[in-house]
């Protein structure tokens, strides 16, 4: 006869309260997290000739397009940094944010089939997109670092690049963590809204684009006119992107006030995202 572990009791009842994050449940499903990351990675590059090489090619191509359009034609200032390096650095942080945000936004709608049949903590899926985002970032770093080393140490332009090594080693991981949490938080908002109103699925691509132009990715923060400074200040992505540029290029104008505001916004978005997501995940399957 099987012995039932009496310590393992599940109580099913309507959830009350604001925030219900099942931390123990998430930990129990940590293996699923890994498998989902593997699934997304494999499925993404199946039947492509170049495979994960696309993770390298894509940002390089975007950078070249930016260098031609914004640097060559529109002649937007890069604060004296070689345009190619400037855009590549901006995109390093931005692509990480954008891919994680998009992935997390789709997490409910894209997995309806699974959620309709099996229970597991739904939060595993958006968290898995964060892990996937980190992997893509790692691949991107492989292209970024050689380019950066070349410009910084082997070209005359490198003389202008003032690398602050200590902050690079200590703060860079923290900045990436902030981007990850911000992308997760805003992605949770989007996925909860999309689950209910599909209209947001159409909006999300547009939001990412608009958000990028509102963030100093293709232009330096110093080029923002004074009357638009407030936009840069309330945009929580401004600080991390500018901080990355500061670390690698020695160019940037992050103010302590902005850092505090950006961190507060990130925390608020993440907390709000968890609240709406945990509210929607309980019954969203009833409305699909």
């Amino acid at each position: 006869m099987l012995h039932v572990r009496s310590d393992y009791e599940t109580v099913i009842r309507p959830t009350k309260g604001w925030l219900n994050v099942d931390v123990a449940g998430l930990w129990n499903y940590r293996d699923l997290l890994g498998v989902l990351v593997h699934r997304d990675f494999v499925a993404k590059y199946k039947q492509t000739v170049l495979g994960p090489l696309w993770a390298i090619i894509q940002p390089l191509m975007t950078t070249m397009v930016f260098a031609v359009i914004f640097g060559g034609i529109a002649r937007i200032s890069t604060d004296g940094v070689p345009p190619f390096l400037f855009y590549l650095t901006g995109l390093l942080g931005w692509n990480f944010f954008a891919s994680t945000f998009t992935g997390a936004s789709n997490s409910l709608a894209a997995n309806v089939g699974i959620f309709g049949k099996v229970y597991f903590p739904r939060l595993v899926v958006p968290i898995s997109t964060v892990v996937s985002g980190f992997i893509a970032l790692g691949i991107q770093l492989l292209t970024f670092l050689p380019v950066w080393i070349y410009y910084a140490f082997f070209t005359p332009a490198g003389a202008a690049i003032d690398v602050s090594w200590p902050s690079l080693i200590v703060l860079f991981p923290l900045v990436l963590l902030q981007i990850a949490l911000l992308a997760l938080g805003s992605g949770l908002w989007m996925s909860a809204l999309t689950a209910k109103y599909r209209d947001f699925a159409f909006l999300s691509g547009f939001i990412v684009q608009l958000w990028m132009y509102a963030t100093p990715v293709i232009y330096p923060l110093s080029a923002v006119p004074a009357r638009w400074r407030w936009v840069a200040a309330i945009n929580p992505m401004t600080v991390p992107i500018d901080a990355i540029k500061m670390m690698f290029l020695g160019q940037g104008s992050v103010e302590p006030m902005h850092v505090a505001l950006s961190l507060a916004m990130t925390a608020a978005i993440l907390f709000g995202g968890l609240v709406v997501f945990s509210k929607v995940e309980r019954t969203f399957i009833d409305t699909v």
Partner: protein
Amino acid sequence: MSIITARSISKRYRLGTLNAATLREEIQSLWDRWRRGNAAPAPDAPRDDDFWALRDVSFDIQEGDVVGIIGGNGAGKSTLLKVLSRITEPTYGEARIRGRVASLLEVGTGFHPELSGRENIFLNGTILGMSKGEVKAKFDEIVDFSGIEKFIDTPVKRYSSGMYVRLAFAVAAHLDPEIMIVDEVLAVGDGEFQKKCLGKMKSIHESGRTVLFVSHQLNMLTSLCTRGIVLKQGTVSFDGPVDEAVLHYRRHAGQRGEATMDFEQAGMRVGDSAAVLHRVRLETVEGRACNTFELQESIVMRIEYSLFLPAQRCAVPSFFVFDGMGDMLFVSVAVAADFGEAINRPGRYIASSTIPGGLLNTGTFTLGVQLVWMNPDVHKPFFEQNVMTFQVSERLDEQAERTRSGYMGEHPGTIRPVLPWEIRSVDSAAHKPA
């Protein structure tokens, strides 16, 4: 001590569509609540379009029970299983479950077509709640049970639907949960594999596990289950030994006697984003709705459905006919090539097919419908196994007396095809009376 305790489980669905008006209402009510505290009506306030899929469902299930959940369409079976497997929350009520639950509401959950069989075993296993280590430990057993060793590194999109199901069931069968929830799994696969599955279910039961089982194959329920819970319109209408439960259900199902099942009107959404089922109707050749047919009378089955997404390969409806014991008698699938591209486009369709008179024997039959949508992978937007029952009867008139050669007793068999006969005398001379 019971392993599952359900107390007054109730589940409400809000019917009606979400649109701009609901978004406006929602923002309005949020605004009102914010301004007036909690004085404004809560979003839980009863509304006209409320539909209670479950109402005050209570029961206790003991360790080792194998319980069949029986009920017609819309009785609340699936909702109950969904609540117990935590896919959705009850509106009211509470259930306590001691032990790990594995729900098997449909096999192959989370299978990714691009991944290989091996990768999918890990994906599916972890989705169902196993750790990677547990999957690894059982990997060989799973592959062995599925019988697809040769194709284990092939992407599952190249699998036949039979192989797919076998692999999926193999993973689920090796979960070793304390409580297993099974919904209509065994209807697929060949006879050999079904036997294997039944054996596995039996051994799961013998090892002391608790099984909750939903199937329309009533005879399978009686052979596997010890207890039956009959649901009717969201409430428990019978709870007791499985034989009595099946009898109870059959008695009431027989009384239903409807020739039209209108899912659309009943507010039931059967299907998914690719297609939905609107109604199913049985009628005579003259087009009169009917659910009792004469032995020689043709039976017209009619289905109305909508396609929302175009199908690359084809989208064909099919009819399933089950006998009184719930065994599948036959399936009839529309031949896609006969209709061409026209039936693959989004739109509303009415399809019909006819069972010729003089094929089925007298008795009670159950009609099921399914839509196969291939894009190009096989997907089934809906598969309703128990849409309605119908009777075939025989009027014992002169005609019957002639065809039965005067024998007026029971004619055995589930079908009774009229076959051509030939009898000729051979070597008659040898038997001439001397």
